[in-house]
């Protein structure tokens, strides 16, 4: 009897070790390329191909300065920040207005319009960017910040409307009724009551869109040919094309690209995971 308890315990411990060994191995594979990127960004052009250490003896922090100034990553960085902020603000404002109407207000054709928005989440049309390019050319918005921003705001609307509508519908009506009795108009109720209450859902929309915009490449490649307008992802490819062998500076550029997104992820991972799950369920 005692033997079988001991056997059971040993089996349990072995299983525990096996599970963690596997999980740690996979974790290392996730983190290692990033550590390698950082370590290479700190090496010199001369040592980067021969020095295989993870922690270089003489870290070249100056590489970041060079990438930022000479590599142009400073400009790309500010462009990325600008695009991310404007698109996120645009999506939150426009999507929440529409979502509030779909959840609380009455007007003819409401359901048709809502399903129209939903349809864009379901139907993939891989060639749509060609027509978008043609459209922006007609509107003289190719190679402008505005064109790049508008397209991406539109891209975030459908999911934003869906998430926020669901949230507004679940919200208790009492507060809105109280505001109405106090003489608040429809817009006032939306702006002062509903929107502040929707913060958790808005956080999901913000993060989801921030990730998408920060990582966007195809549209930036298609629409922006002026270096001063390019975001980081496009800038990385331009830099790589021009200086194929300058690995430490390229890795410094990638690090500059990655740091904001990783920081945001660590701070707000709860919302990111909620967003992925929600995005998957609707998409």
């Amino acid at each position: 009897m005692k033997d079988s308890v001991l056997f059971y315990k040993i089996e349990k411990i072995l299983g525990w070790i096996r599970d963690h060994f596997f999980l740690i191995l996979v974790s290392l594979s996730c983190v290692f390329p990033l550590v390698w990127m950082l370590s290479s960004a700190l090496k010199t052009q001369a040592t980067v191909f021969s020095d295989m250490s993870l922690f270089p003896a003489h870290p070249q922090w100056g590489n970041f300065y060079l990438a930022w100034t000479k590599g142009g990553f400073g400009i790309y960085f500010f462009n990325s920040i600008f695009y991310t902020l404007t698109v996120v603000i645009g999506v939150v404002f426009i999507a929440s207005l529409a979502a509030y109407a779909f959840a609380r207000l009455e007007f003819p054709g409401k359901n048709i319009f809502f399903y129209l928005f939903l349809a864009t989440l379901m139907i993939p049309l891989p060639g749509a960017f060609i027509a978008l390019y043609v459209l922006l050319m007609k509107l003289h918005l190719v190679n402008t910040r505005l064109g790049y921003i508008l397209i991406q705001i539109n891209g975030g609307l459908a999911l934003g409307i869906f998430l926020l509508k669901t949230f507004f519908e679940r919200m208790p009506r009492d507060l809105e009724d109280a505001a109405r009795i106090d003489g608040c108009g429809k817009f006032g109720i939306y702006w002062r009551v509903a929107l502040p209450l929707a913060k958790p859902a808005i956080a999901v929309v913000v993060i989801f869109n921030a990730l998408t915009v920060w990582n966007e490449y195809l549209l930036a490649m298609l629409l922006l040919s002026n270096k001063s307008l390019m975001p980081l992802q496009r800038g990385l490819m331009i830099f790589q094309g021009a200086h194929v062998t300058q690995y430490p500076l390229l890795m410094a550029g990638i690090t500059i690209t990655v740091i904001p997104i990783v920081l945001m992820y660590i701070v707000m991972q709860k919302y990111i995971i909620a967003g992925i799950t929600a995005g998957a369920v609707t998409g």
Partner: protein
Amino acid sequence: MVAKERFKAIFGNYLFILPALGMFLIFSVYPFFKVFQLSVFQWDGIMPTMKFVGLSHFKDILFRNPTWWQSVGNGAYITFLALTFQNCLAFVLALLVDRGIKGGKIYRVIFYLPPILSGIVVGLIWNWIYNGDYGLLNYALKALGLAGIQRAWLAEPKTALTSVAIIHMWRGFGWGFIIMLAGLQNIPRELYEAAKVDGANKWQMLRRITVPLMIPVFVLVSILTILGCMQIYALIVATTGGGPGYHTEVPVTRIISSMLGQSQFGYACAMGILFGLILLTASMIQLRISRRIKQE
């Protein structure tokens, strides 16, 4: 008077959806139809003249464009590897973490790190790992005494596509893991308790409870995997650019090169439509299969 008030109220309500609807009509609905219109014209994207060619673009793509079909095949190959290896890994990891293992939260954070990185970033980092002359992989192989299989992984026809697929799976498994974990956590624990009382072992519980209840999640993950893998683009641009030869060309790189490389806007639109149909069919088949499994 009352009618006027009502009209005013409805008009006011429309104002709420007006910005969204306006953008949607201009940037979603118009391009949608425009793609279909352009697909029957020959047009270089610049000149005001367009030549009507009917369905000849579609015919050409279907019957006289082996490169296109190679690119679809390449996309399908990456998709197949992702559906099997990537999603199996995701499921196994989700099962391990779902058991309430210590540090589960930390693993969750780490596994989702690669998916938040862009295709460009991931591609550029892995470029170097795979590099034939000074890549990390070859260095490791040499250290392990396996110098014989060293090669330029992304530059050789035999290994390029699989190497790209591995990068894609490295980036994607954490995403499948998160969704499958959410699915597992939705399964009521009482079911397992009851099965335990009945004397079921772990394997039986997995087969009889977990897998059947997870089928909707598997279908969802599969559909999204297909849509994601087939539309892969940035990763290709950052690693191989479609080469060597056409060995890593995928549908989106073909569409772009028709559009920008050959200035064949109409042809590119036709490719987009055919490709959209392929994606739609794949999703439909998945849904069908899941319905049939559910009935059984």
